[in-house]
């Protein structure tokens, strides 16, 4: 069955995404990994509930379209957030004790590292 191939491919892509998410420190890489996982998910959603009476079932396709839209806007927003975070702290990672040299940057100054959020 061709759908089995698709399912396997989706699973493989998903696995790559999970690996990337867990291993990477850089936010951009995490976002890419998440996008991979989302793509795998959409593939799965198209393939699994595929037909009603031999004709293509429109509902999963509608779901996937919605999902793609949401994924795109979320990614765009996440990129904007990442840029702002990068400008503030000199590296794009959310792990506070990451050594920036791993990301190819110089060590940031202490002044940037405030740990207390305040209201003003």
């Amino acid at each position, binding site marked *: 069955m061709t759908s089995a191939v698709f399912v396997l491919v989706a699973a493989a892509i998903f696995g790559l995404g999970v690996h990337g998410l867990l291993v990477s420190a850089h936010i951009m890489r995490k976002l890419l990994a998440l996008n991979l996982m*989302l793509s795998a998910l959409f593939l799965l959603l198209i393939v699994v509930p595929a037909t009603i009476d031999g004709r293509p079932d429109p509902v999963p396709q509608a779901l996937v379209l919605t999902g793609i839209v949401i994924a795109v806007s979320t990614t765009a927003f996440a990129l904007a*957030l990442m840029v702002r975070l990068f400008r503030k702290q000199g590296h794009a990672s959310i792990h506070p004790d990451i050594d920036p040299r791993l990301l190819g940057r110089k060590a940031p100054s202490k002044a940037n590292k405030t740990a207390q959020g305040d209201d003003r």
Partner: protein
Amino acid sequence: MTPAAQLLIGLVFVPLSTALVAVLLPPRRRRWAVVLGGLAWPCLLVPLSMAVAREQSVVMVFGGWAPPLGIGWRLDALGLVVLWVHALAGIAALPSAWRRFDPDLPESGPFWSLWMILATGVNLALLAADLFNLYVALELTTLAAVALIATDDGIAALAAAMRYLLLAVLGSLMYVLGVGLVYAQTGSLAMHQPGIEALNNVALVLMLTGLMVKAAIFPLHVWLPHAYSNAPGPVAAIMAAVVGKAALVAFWRIWFETAEAPPAQLADFLGLIGAAALVYGAIAAYLQPRLKMVIAYSSISHFGFLLLLLPLASQQAFQGAGFHLLAHGLAKAAMFLAAANIVVVLGSDSIRHLPGLDKRMPLEAFTLALAGVTLIGLPPSGGFTGKWMLLSAAWETGGWFWLVLIVLSGLMSAAYVFRILALTCFHPARRAVHHLHPRPPKITSLAALTLALLAVVIGLYPHPVLDLLGAGMPGMVR
């Protein structure tokens, strides 16, 4: 469409249109528009409450297309209760937001519209009658919440927002996968799936796990403490009051309605996770050095507590849990609003600066005390009512383990609440805080105090809410 159903539209479209209008307006008018919108949509709750009391639910279907193809909205008792929490917390947070997001500050630009978009998302999530609508609503809520946290613009807030976003996307992934599997099994996306013997367990677990991430249930809670404690005050209040709760409501709905007969072992397992969350949150709250972190971990503890509904699963337990949602939402919002004012005046929320608070900011100290009383569940507060109903339910089903756990939960909450109270009111002011910033307007303190008072007072007159919940347990209502 009945008139009540038409009002449902207002619940979503009033905040949405306010948000859109606000984007177009100049900064000063923007605040006014959003305040008006934020006061307008709660007015719809009054006739809607009466309608739900009469008919147990108000249903609306778009375009006359019946589900599963069409989109339907449904307001039942549970949704109504959380909507009230949302409305009350939102109104109470307005003075604080007004002061904090003054038009002259750069970050207040996006704040007002985002506030209304968050409201739209939450309301939509509570009204959703099918699984995919819920997904869209939760995504909208998440994005708005992340953006709102990021308005703070400090590194901590931005990092917390980023972490929340990444985890939320992960959660959504799992949820959508679950939805897809449900569709594959039944061919319908409605929340109520008639006629299936048992929902595919994999699908159920996936959906529930995704929702657990969004509701910050231990051990998937890691985004919450930093997000709540680094968010600006009014944002934290609203998030604590409703955002996590919307996901929890979805969790309950899927459990009771979609999976009509979930396996008992899964119920017990989830109950144990709830117990772990309860204990972990309480211990962590006791050890925190910052006030807002204490309150945040307390939320984790109480969300775990609410998960105990699953193994107990009776109407009485549902009434208790629903009532606890109400009381806890109000109390938490009150605490975060008070904490926001404390941060403004003292410059930080470190507990080292708390001694002497009862002299400097008596209203805030009293708010914290009252809200704490509800959290502990001391009679006659709202927290006690919820706790008692759950205890009776546990006794009736013979769940001794759950009964003892619920009873002990009060003790655990008491530990961190009294720690804060002792520090605030009875420690001598050892370290003089060097610079006291100007106080926010009194109405912000009074708003927080009112919420805390409400949380206690509803314990004295719980009947309307309890009756409403009694008739409206998910899985019983169509």
